């Protein structure tokens, strides 16, 4: 909608103060939080994702947009919760055991948040058991595993197995990614999907969530 163009553009250019100001103004004007989210913040982040995918944006641009997005989301969150608006899906993301590379995982989280997903960040060096436990506690729909080292890729498989032995494998979808990871590897370990970058990750998550 026309009136959200400026908010979208502020997200795209990563102007956090402007996003805060505009979001608050829409709320003061009585616009529903869900509308501000769906027509302002999310379309803005979609453009950010596209620019990243097309090679126009790099990580700094993504981080600035994410910071601006968070200012908006923080204002909307209590209202969304109060009016019982559900996120697209709940995703748990983390970097697997032994691995501390988190830049890629963080970008994936950013894009998912920007796509209306609720993201729970398990951090780095996350053991299979912790993934299982956290997934249960927050009853997530999707688990996203990141690994940047060939040395830690086996921990992805171990995490898939941990969900199996826990009996909760069929309650969640698992997507994986990171520099050395491939579609073939995802198939081999029985994950549900692989995405090469943060923009494709959100498409994958949408597929997995069935939206």
């Amino acid at each position, binding site marked *: 909608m026309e009136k959200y163009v400026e908010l979208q553009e502020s997200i795209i250019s990563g102007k956090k103060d402007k996003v805060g100001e505009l979001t608050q103004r829409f709320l003061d004007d009585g616009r529903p939080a869900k509308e501000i989210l769906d027509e302002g913040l999310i379309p803005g982040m979609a453009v950010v994702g596209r620019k990243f995918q097309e090679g126009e944006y*790099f990580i*700094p641009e993504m981080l600035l947009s994410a910071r601006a997005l968070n200012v908006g989301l923080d204002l909307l969150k209590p209202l969304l919760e109060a009016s019982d608006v559900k996120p697209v899906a709940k995703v748990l993301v983390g970097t697997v055991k032994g691995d501390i590379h988190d830049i890629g995982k963080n970008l994936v989280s950013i894009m998912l948040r920007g796509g209306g997903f609720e993201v729970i960040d398990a951090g780095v060096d996350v053991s299979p058991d912790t993934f299982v436990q956290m997934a249960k506690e927050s009853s997530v729909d999707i688990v996203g595993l990141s690994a940047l080292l060939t040395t830690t890729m086996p921990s992805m498989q171990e995490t898939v197995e941990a969900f199996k032995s826990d009996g909760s494998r069929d309650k969640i979808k698992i997507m994986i990614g990171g520099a050395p990871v491939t579609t073939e590897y995802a198939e081999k370990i029985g994950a549900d999907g692989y995405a090469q970058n943060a923009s494709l990750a959100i498409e994958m998550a949408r597929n997995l969530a069935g939206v």
Partner: protein
Amino acid sequence: MTSKERVHAALRREPVDRVPVYMWYHPETTQQLAELLEIPAGKVADAMGDDVRQKWVGGNYAMEGIVHDQEGCTHTDFWGIEWVKLGYFNQIRKYPLQHTSREEILRFKHPYDKIETLLQQMEPILPLGDKLFIGCDVSPCAFEMVYRLCGMDEALMNLLADVELSKKMLRDASGFALKLAEMACERFPIDWLWTGDDVAGQERMMMKPQDWCDTIGPQLAKVVNVGKQHGLWVAHHCCGATRPVIPDLIEMGVDVLNPVQGNCPGMDPFELKREFGGELSFMGGIDTQDLLPNGSAKEVRRVTEAMLEGMTADGGGYILAASHTIPHETPIDNVFAMYEAAGISREEIFDRAANIRNNQAT
């Protein structure tokens, strides 16, 4: 030919008896080799026949040089960065300038009073310099040091959101590396100055190449220049898809590029050789993300042979190395396969190991 002569000759594109080798191992891989060869871990490079010995005198010392024996052990380095042992390496637990005020960042001083202590890391390898090629590693040189001080998110965002602060931090970080480089070059009889600054991922650079040129590049150039002023070779390490700034690295005087991750866009070693080989030498290129851990020894040998042929097509300009530390899931036969392709046989390696054992016994 001594190792020293071999590396110099290769970099000058002069004839060599075999291509020089400088391999980096994951500590666990070193351990596996040490056990197999029945020698101490510290002697593995000697037995394998590697031509270069190098020490970190910059911030990397805190990451890999300090080896705690217990998981979870911590130390704080000279910059106030807190490290914790996680697996085989130390990882940052606390970035001293993260979430602090701009004023505090502006007040930050690099540990110039610790330069002597840092330079002392070089002492053990200096006596080897009559035969071996000696390097001094002053990395991280610019962006990577800023990242260690204020965390990755702030380091990256400041490049756009607070250019002035970003430039000041980069200037200070490279200023320290520059001082280390100057003192090392003046004091030690080294063969190359090793610089490094990781700014690229698997698919592309972390920041827009133009932003790198405007902020990071000029700072890095000052450090590289120290090596050039002292008439030394200058090597530069940057992982990932660094292609867009290779011409800039050449212009600032970099002679050797490492680690050449050939599976990243734009990083095909043969293409790089064709395009930049006249001015630039390469060290690396044997893939650690798939070939070494997953390939057969035969494949490794074939790929390495092709690499040696392609990368020395103009008579040199290549040092055999993997595209980073060799991960410990790599079958040991694959390690030997690389050396065999370079003309270093397994027998030769085991013979050298036996000599090392004998020398230690006497």
